């Protein structure tokens, strides 16, 4: 009795203090152009954060700095409490201190790209097992079994032996989501997953993403799908010119836009 009380009391603060992902004061310039001007963000386990913003506001750059596809100029990224260590290079820029750490953390942060980026010379099934086998070093047979289950889940199991160019955009993006799930990631990063799709194919991808949110996946989703942002996400973050313009509960944000910028953004969107 007293033991279970103790664990319950211990469990709560540790859940709260360790964010699944936290970004602190991230900055990034491309030449003279400051694209991220000190962005902070925190997602706890099960959070779905929709990142909104007009084109060029730095949404993709933010995601790409989180998994170090771009190197941020300054700022901290922590995944599950673990800080990605950076070091100062000779030319004054910072670079990852330990590339093995970066690779390990990337494996926990599966990314879904706007243009799918499935490996075109591999079948769907091969796409799903490549990283689990070669990065996570899991047994191939087990990975294949998991891959087939994931493909059934996203509804393209019949296409498992197809090559990506032979599938519709919606099917490719669902395969890409399955490829990300195959890593059992701690956090999933989505960069405009439906923007490259024909309108009639958007629904099938959003349905899959909705089901991921419902099962408690931690997700950062850059999107222009206002319906998804409002109904599915637990937080909405609006970026404007490289800064967090506003951040809040989706229902609240859409009902009473906290800033003029955000109000204008959603008004333009509904036009």
């Amino acid at each position, binding site marked *: 009795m007293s033991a279970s009380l103790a664990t319950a009391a211990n469990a709560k603060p540790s859940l709260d203090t360790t964010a699944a992902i936290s970004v602190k004061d991230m900055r990034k310039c491309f030449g003279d152009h400051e694209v991220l001007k000190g962005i902070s963000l925190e997602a706890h386990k099960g959070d779905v954060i929709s990142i909104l913003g007009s084109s060029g506001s730095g949404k993709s750059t933010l995601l790409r700095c989180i*998994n170090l*596809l771009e190197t941020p100029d300054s700022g901290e990224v922590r995944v599950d409490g673990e800080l990605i260590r950076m070091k100062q290079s000779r030319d004054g820029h910072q670079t990852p201190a330990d*590339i*093995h750490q970066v*690779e*390990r*953390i*990337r*494996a*926990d*942060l*599966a*990314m879904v*790209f706007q*243009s799918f*980026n*499935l*490996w*075109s*010379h591999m079948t769907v099934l091969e796409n799903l097992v*490549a*990283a689990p086998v*070669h*990065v996570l070093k899991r047994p191939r047979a087990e990975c294949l079994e998991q891959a087939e289950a994931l493909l059934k889940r996203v509804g393209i199991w019949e296409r498992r*032996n*197809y*090559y*990506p*160019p*032979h*599938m519709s955009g919606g099917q490719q993006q669902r395969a890409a989501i399955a*490829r990300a799930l195959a*890593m059992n990631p701690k956090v999933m990063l989505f960069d405009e997953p439906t923007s490259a799709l024909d309108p009639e194919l958007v629904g099938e991808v959003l349905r899959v993403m909705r089901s991921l949110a419902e099962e408690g996946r931690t997700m950062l989703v850059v999107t222009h799908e206002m319906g998804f942002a409002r109904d599915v996400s637990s937080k909405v973050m609006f970026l404007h010119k490289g800064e967090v313009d506003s951040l809040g509960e989706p229902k609240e944000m859409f009902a009473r836009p906290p800033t003029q910028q955000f109000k204008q953004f959603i008004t333009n969107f509904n036009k």
Partner: protein
Amino acid sequence: MDFDFYLSTMWSVLKALPLTLEIWFFGVAIGLVLATGLTWLRASGYKLGEYFTRAYVFVFRGSPLLVQLYLIYFGLSQFDFIRHSPILWPILRDPMYCTIVAMALNTAAYSSEIFRGSLRAVPVGQIEAAKAFGMPAFTRFRLVTLPIALRLALPAYSTEIILMTKATALASVVTIMEMMGTAQKIQHDTFRPIEVLTCAGVIYLLLNLSIARLFAWVEYLLSPHLRPAPGQSQQIKPVPEVL
């Protein structure tokens, strides 16, 4: 038409085919190894490596193979240190080895340019996906970059290899009796250049036809993703129709 003469000439030239193939095979194989090294040096990011490969390509792509062959066979023997070298001299006094060396050095220049171009043509999204999934550099190269670059390189590289079969004919100028050397000898003995050269030409054509078919087959095997999907009837054309 003198069929007997055609037949006997064909037969004599064909008997030299193994020698032609030998020069071709070793020239291409050693050239491939050198090209791989050059490509790696060029892509490694070292400035010195880049300057070296640029200079190498400039020299060996910019001058005729015949000039290179003459310089290697006749030119290098002028140097005492080469004639006294226990390793270099056995190679460089032999016209067969000299031809292979010249061909390998020459094709390495072209091939490394082909490989460099195809490495650069690998879509960046494919590599980024591999990075984003935590693949270390070598795994990324082995699973994604190389397989894609290889497919991109094949059409141009097969052309380079066909050029090399034709280049083996140059071996005849340094006394090698491969197909061209044999044909020239028959021509000298018989004074019937048209028939003899026709025979040689036909054999080269058939040889290159087989090599081209072989490469087309390899390309076909490696690119199921560029063919129509199972059950999909329409042909996906690799090249847009412009005419």
